[in-house]
């Protein structure tokens, strides 16, 4: 087992510990555990970044190609964004109970995937790759943050003045959670749009067409449309509260499918980035 893989297992262990601490901390209303959970999440970033840096040097490119690398990149951004949010506003720490399980499941899945380094294909060898992937990671991290906030909102709403409302009492008011969910959706919507735009410019450079209704392109548009509906419902139809939170919860897996599922399910000219068919 190489240093890189050992470090990645250490990172995964940190995230698993963080998830467990979040669950226990929230369930038994122990703020100390929740704070330690944020610390464990932040700690996990160190070996993960180190592992990815070692890999970057070894394979000659960033975490862009193959299920293992792509998922790693996504998880890194998800955890980093969450840690940043919890560091800036400690009252939001408990939202980690909705976010860290997503990170653990994704990274756990990645650890089971083939980890051999794939070379850059001529189609992928472009500086646009970095820009495109960075925006995809940022967008997904924002969508997962909105997912975690929406989960917290729903759990507390359903509990009314019950047990879970007390357990999540340290979180900001419901209105603030709802507003934050929308702001993360908006940020994700912007970054996802930037991902589509950078992808279109890159596609024109690589293939001579900016849009080809390829399944992966189409699904990226579908995700944008789904979140556009969310924002219209919020800002023009006055949707708020639980049903809007449910929308954010359901929309996040759609973005996950667009990023990781579509190259596996569909034959696509883009498939090379996840180890599938590369046109």
């Amino acid at each position: 087992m190489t240093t890189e893989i050992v470090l990645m297992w250490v990172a995964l262990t940190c995230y698993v510990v963080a998830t467990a601490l979040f669950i226990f901390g929230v369930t038994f209303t122990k703020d100390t555990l929740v704070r330690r959970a944020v610390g464990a999440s932040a700690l996990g970033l160190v070996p993960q970044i180190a592992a990815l840096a070692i890999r970057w040097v070894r394979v000659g490119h960033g975490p862009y190609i193959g299920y293992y690398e792509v998922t790693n990149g996504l998880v890194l951004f998800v955890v980093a964004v969450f840690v940043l949010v919890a560091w800036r506003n400690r009252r939001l720490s408990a939202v980690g109970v909705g976010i860290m399980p997503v990170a653990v499941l994704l990274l756990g899945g990645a650890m089971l995937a083939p980890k051999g380094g794939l070379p850059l294909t001529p189609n992928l060898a472009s500086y646009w790759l970095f820009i495109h992937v960075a925006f995809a990671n940022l967008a997904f991290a924002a969508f997962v943050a909105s997912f975690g906030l929406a989960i917290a909102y729903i759990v507390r709403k359903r509990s009314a003045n019950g047990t879970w409302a007390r357990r999540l009492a340290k979180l900001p008011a419901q209105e603030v959670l709802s507003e934050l969910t929308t702001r993360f959706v908006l940020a994700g919507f912007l970054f996802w749009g930037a991902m589509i735009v950078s992808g279109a410019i890159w596609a024109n450079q690589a293939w001579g067409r900016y849009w080809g209704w390829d399944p992966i392109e189409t699904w990226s548009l579908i995700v944008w449309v789904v979140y556009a509906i969310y924002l219209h419902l919020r800002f023009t139809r006055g949707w708020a509260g639980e049903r809007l939170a449910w929308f954010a919860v359901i929309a996040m897996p759609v973005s996950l499918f667009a990023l990781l599922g579509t190259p596996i399910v569909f034959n696509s000219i883009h498939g090379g980035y996840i180890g599938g068919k590369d046109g």
Partner: protein
Amino acid sequence: MIRRAVGRVIGFLRSTGFAIALLAFTGVWSMVATFVPQGDAYEPGVMAWAAAHPVAEKITGFLGLHQAFTAPVFRVAVVALALSTGLCAWRRTSVARARARSLRRAAMASAEDLIADHDLEIPCSRALSRSEAETRGAEALLRLGLRTKFDHGVLASVSPWWAVLGSPVFHWGLVALIVVVLAGGLVRSEGLMGIAVGETKRDAPESYRVLEAGPLHSWKRIDRSIRVDGFETDYQTGSIDRGPVPTVSVLDGKGQVITTQRVYPNNPLQVGSLTIHPAEFGFAAILTLLDKNGADLGSQTELIDISQETSSGTVPVEPLTLNDAGRQLVVAVTVPMERSGEGLAAPQERVAHVEVFTTDDVLVTDAMMAVGDELMLPSGSKLRLRDLTFYSRLNVVDDPSVPLLYAALAVALAGLAVVVFVRQQIVLGAYVEDGDRGTFLMRLRLWKNVPTNRAEIESELTKALNGQADEEDR
């Protein structure tokens, strides 16, 4: 009556419910389309799917889901979405202009303006002087994330006037994008042009084997040629293997080279609205017909594709026809490839298998030929293999709409970035003397991205200014 009907149509088109329905339709339609093979009815994938799903095929065929993104239903939805977005953008522009005016006025507001128009009145403790009240007010607002500046006796935290333009700019950007995409299809041309190394072809319809051109694409204004100068089978840049790479030149009408470069994925040749990418490559056999006396009767180039499905590993793109002393003959050239594992490799000593047929497909003669060899034809004339080289099939796109498309995308994203990151707020406060005690007047417009709300501001200022905060601290 007409005006009322038009008003109703416009009202319907700009209704948010209609916009959401269109978005939902676009999303669901696209989703379904990714699970249905795309292409015309005769494509093998479509035919196989239709045979396997006879019931679903009736619906997909009726709706046009096999060509989902050019189907009339989808096009109508996109046009409706553009109209809806345009009307929505218009309405948002009106709101944004009004708010921008408010922001400009607020940026210059004085204490007298606040006395005339305010939303909150917070009585101040008698113990507080004017400067203390103003300092405490500023500190309280800062605790809520509102950094103020003090000017003309007014505490102000006012967004720039353009902060409210993000949403309309984003929507206008989307409208422009849809219009450019639709209009771009009318002027765009895209085609595949096979050119042998050393050969030059005019950029004209007859030079393309496959061509799609919009009805407004003008060939008359185009006076240029494309030449393939060289071909490298294994080109490397740094550690990256770029594969087979042609060097391509674009020439003007007088034959002067405008530009020359190697073209490979992510490195297209671009001249104005023209973009050239390499699509495929193969061999090119240049054949010269010689009469009985050895006089040159002219040369033709036969393009040969690499194909896994034939025994030789190659197949002619299009057999040549030649006139052998009044008799039409068909010439098909292949280049025997070496099998290497699952792939094909060009042989070290390249030879061509030249077959000559009658127009009824009867073999007249054939031979394995190296460059310079000659093949005797029935009339006594000869066919010489003058050269055996590579050809590059270039994807040639002429699309003047691309810069406009990028501009529309940039405008849309810039607008969206303003929506996401820039606050839209007017927070003005002024201390005014009111008998023996002062009052803090506030004007608040908290539109978007504001880190607090009216209730919090009122509560925090009350605590800071009327002494309750001091009591709580004690």
